[in-house]
């Protein structure tokens, strides 16, 4: 008899506690856990619970991008999200036979990236119909600018560097347009990236650069006569040098495709432009970056600069010998 009473008593004790536990389990995860505001997705953290929490948060962000990307496949571009920062891609371009092909395949890539704004700057006196129609038919969110590079820069006799590197004036125009269009105080979050029209970009690259706070960097393939050039990153996750053969002592030994700048930084330093003249080969990027940021401020991306997400491909100049002097093919057909 006492045994049965004991059992009844034990049941009466355990039952309410199990009810209580299930009730607590269903409510939101308790505020007793982490209060860190750290957004970085590094693995180190104090307690396992906090890490799981942060990861679920960043996973949510990625989930959105993934869902948008896979579900929209045939509706392009992806719908505009109010949360993701806008990526402003600045592409200088100039007329040559492969121009339409290059811009077509670059646009096919960019059409997959959410919240992208393409700033295409032509090296021409007037906006060409080829580019105008291409942009109109693509469906991308774009801005079409143009500025012609003066051909006669040799007059001043600057023998060391008589010509300005290609695309400089065009990129500077885009920077100026950004500064005129966006206000440093009220601007939405944005990232600025310089993308040449003949390179190859993976879609992962654009998601890596979205979290740029000042200037982020990553490896680039096929530059500097190497398989890839990359920043040197120490164990603390900071950039301390450059793994290149060609002049690794440049302030920023990096290719144009290897870095992205936060829009706010561009707007807050209105004097920062690419230097036009007197710039040695390979120092173009440094001429802009040294006005914006120091080496220690650089943010390494692409798994601490161990993955290659962008390739500096170059397209062969097509052989057009059979055109002859007068042009064999109908010049009205656009290529």
């Amino acid at each position, binding site marked *: 008899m006492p045994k049965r009473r004991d059992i009844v008593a034990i049941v009466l004790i355990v039952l309410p506690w199990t009810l209580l536990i299930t009730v607590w389990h269903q409510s939101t995860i308790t*505020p007793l856990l982490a209060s860190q505001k750290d957004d970085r997705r590094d693995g180190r953290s104090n307690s396992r619970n906090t890490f799981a929490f942060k990861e679920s948060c960043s996973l949510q962000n990625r989930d959105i991008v993934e869902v948008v990307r896979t579900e929209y496949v045939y509706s392009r571009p992806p719908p505009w999200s*109010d949360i993701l920062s806008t990526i402003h891609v600045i592409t200088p371009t100039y007329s040559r036979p492969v121009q339409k*092909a290059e811009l*077509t395949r670059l646009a096919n890539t960019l059409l997959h990236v959410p919240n992208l704004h393409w700033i295409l700057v032509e090296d021409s006196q007037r906006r060409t119909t080829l580019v105008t129609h291409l942009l109109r038919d693509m469906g991308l969110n774009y801005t079409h600018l143009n500025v012609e590079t003066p051909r006669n820069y040799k007059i001043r006799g600057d023998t060391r560097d008589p010509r300005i590197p290609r695309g400089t004036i065009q990129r500077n125009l885009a920077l100026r347009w950004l500064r005129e269009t966006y206000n440093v105080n009220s601007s939405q979050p944005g990232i600025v990236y310089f993308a040449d029209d003949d390179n190859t970009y993976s879609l992962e690259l654009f998601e890596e650069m979205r979290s740029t706070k000042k200037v982020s960097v990553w490896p680039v393939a096929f530059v500097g006569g190497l398989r890839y050039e990359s920043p040197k990153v120490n164990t603390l996750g900071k950039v301390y040098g450059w*793994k290149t*053969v060609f002049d690794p002592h440049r302030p920023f030994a990096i290719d144009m495709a290897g870095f992205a700048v936060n829009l706010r930084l561009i707007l807050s330093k209105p004097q920062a432009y690419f230097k036009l003249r007197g710039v040695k080969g390979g120092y173009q990027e440094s001429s802009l970056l040294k006005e914006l940021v120091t080496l220690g401020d650089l943010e390494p991306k692409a798994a601490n600069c161990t993955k*290659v997400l962008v390739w500096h491909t*170059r397209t062969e100049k097509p052989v057009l010998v059979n055109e002859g002097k007068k042009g*064999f093919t109908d010049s009205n057909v656009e290529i």
Partner: protein
Amino acid sequence: MATRMKLKLKTVFVLYFMVSLLGLIYALMQLGQRCDCTEHDIPKDRTISRLRGELHRLQEQIRKSEATKQPQKPPDRQPTVFVITPTYARLVQKAELTRLSQTFLHVPQLHWIVVEDSPHKTPLVTDLLVKSGVTYTHLHMPTAKDRKLQEGDPSWLKPRGVEQRNEGLRWLREDRRAQPGGDNQQGVVYFADDDNTYSLQIFEEMRSTQRVSVWPVGLVGGMKYERPVVEGGKVVRFHTGWRPSRPFPMDMAGFAVSLKLVLSNPEACFDGEAPMGFLESSFLQGLVTMDELEPKADNCSKVLVWHTRTEKPKMKREEALHAQGLGSDPAVELVDFIQQRSG
């Protein structure tokens, strides 16, 4: 003594039970106060609900835009475009396949058949295809050594991709034979090299191919573009600067064959022994005559595909570093290790 013990135990139990009951009542009261959770609401919580809301909004937008589109055939009724791409390991392979996959990802009902010139499937291509999101089939077929271009050979010396394209055709025939519909299946077969550039329109143009359709190709044959000349809706001759007397003087990227024709002609394949420039003709000769060709791209007046070629990247410094034993980390994937041996 026993009774005293028992009594004590009883009080303990009763006490315990009362405490539990009070705890339960408290918890149930908490349940009722759902609006009072701002103190428990930390920023990350808010972000999650905001992201969820954003996700739902975007999904709604997608559904809305899909609904307002012009009513067209539901995607699974459109004829599938089977794209056969031969590829081989070299420095720019990953880049080429990446940007090609980015184009194909836009095309509905596309099945990408990638055939590697390799004795086995490489991890580089395997991973790329998995991550690409494109519907694909991954095959491999090595080229015989004497048929392979050696280092320093000009690119026109030996035909490239022959064995691979034939393997793609063989797989396609075998796979489709097992499908319902037999030889009457809808579909189009297109040979897309991995360094060319394709606009999205070309795939829509070729979808309606009944036998063999043709269109202009840009930047090929030593000219801005090569194209079939169309009169009265029929192809009468070809506008090309190089050997126009060939049966079909066009590039691989300039035609597509209907699946029906491929299946009903199981012997049709590319002839590796054909003289330079006759590769396409060796395939098409048995399939169709010139007046049966269907001109696309606005009666062959628009260029929707370009025969671009990618430069070989300069590796002088890499080789110099290698000599010193300081080459860049080969573990960073760019190029297959097989290529390293010959490079």
